[in-house]
């Protein structure tokens, strides 16, 4: 199945981004070095997620199995 390969999972990426955003809030005095790294990662995630948002198509497939059997 291509399910695994299919781009980074939106839910996971979003969750990671949320965690990073929370990290920025939880630190009273940000470690600047770590802050920059986190920021970079956050922007990367936000960018990937935004890109996913531009996916327009949903794939609708009718299941071949007959349910009137």
């Amino acid at each position, binding site marked *: 199945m291509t399910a695994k390969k299919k781009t980074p999972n939106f839910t996971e990426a*979003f969750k990671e981004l949320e965690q990073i*955003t929370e990290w920025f809030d939880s630190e009273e005095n940000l470690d600047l070095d770590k802050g920059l790294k986190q920021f970079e990662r956050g922007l990367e995630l936000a960018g990937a*997620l935004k890109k996913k948002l531009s996916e327009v198509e949903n794939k609708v*497939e009718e*299941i071949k199995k007959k349910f009137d059997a």
Partner: protein
Amino acid sequence: MQQLVLSVANYLNLVNDTLKTVPSKDLMIEGEVSDFRIAQQKWVSFDLKDEKEQAVLKCFMTTWQLKVQIENGMRVQVKGYPKIYERFGTFKMNVQEVMPVGEGALQRAYQLLKKKLEQEGLFDMSRKRALKRFPERIGLITSRDAAAFGDFVRILNNRWGGVSVDHAHVHVQGRMAVKEIVEAFEYFNSLNDNERPDVLVLTRGGGGLEDLHAFNDESVARAIYASQIPVVCAVGHERDESLGDFVADVRASTPSNAAELIVPSRTDVAYELETMSRHMEERLRESIDRRGHIVQRATNLVSFVLDRQKERFRFVYDKLTLTTSDWIPQIRIELEGLGRVLRQVDPQRVLARGYSIVSVDGTVVTDASTLEVGQDIAVQFGAGSLEAEVKRLNGKGQQQLV
């Protein structure tokens, strides 16, 4: 040919036996209730009538067999066994089951089933599951011909993308509906993890109780209850309700609403991403600013200390210059005064006026009586000096020769 003679009782037994050959189990007799009465809170009797053909069937049953409320004028279907009661010679239907028919009657049946399922806990809020915020696979159970199908997919596409929708085509009304819907639930739940949808949607357009019968069916309700995958149920218009709605984890008011509840909107999520990015940036900037601020403060502090020192120095310097400029002329005046005094007592000046100083061995003589006649003395004048010998002292000694 010998005629068979029977007693009345035996005859009626024979007739009753014959009546048992009527396929009662498979028959429902439909008519309108009249002359409904309950005797001694135990015996129920009513007439079942055809309005047009003036046919009457007398019905008899007990109150505990009567599970639904019926009343005169209500259309019902009854199931039971016909019998002639020997004592009164009357033909009656021994009723086992009464089923109301028509909208009002169905409503009644619906309420009863709802109560039963509710008591069993199928509607408990505590067992409702939350939906995944970003589902990737949706199991859609509805008819491909229903408007609900189109509505759901359209709103889904409007809001979100990249989702796989596995559509199980089932009838949503008619006699096949219940069986197909139940099988669709079983199918989705039988899939292994990577093929299994994140959420199931059971939906159809609105309709009367008769149209919605499948969504009010007990086995469909139980299939929803048993589903390991969270279920969203959406029937028709806002005001329509079905038992499926109550059992489902999430109840949507319409098929479009179901799509809204299942996927987020791009706009909302884009805004959220924007907000998070901005927030991170702000926090980072704040942190940098705070550090800059600390440096600034330190600089300020140092220059403040320097200023203070400078100020102090200036103050001391000013005070110094002020006092020196004050006391130097003063000293000059004082010195000049002293100089004058000193100059006035300078012995040289006194001698210059004609005085002389007499000394013996360098000691100034101020009292003549310390001297002796014949002693050598030194006399100093304003200009020059001499040495002499004391000849006469205070009138004593060698007479001056005149």
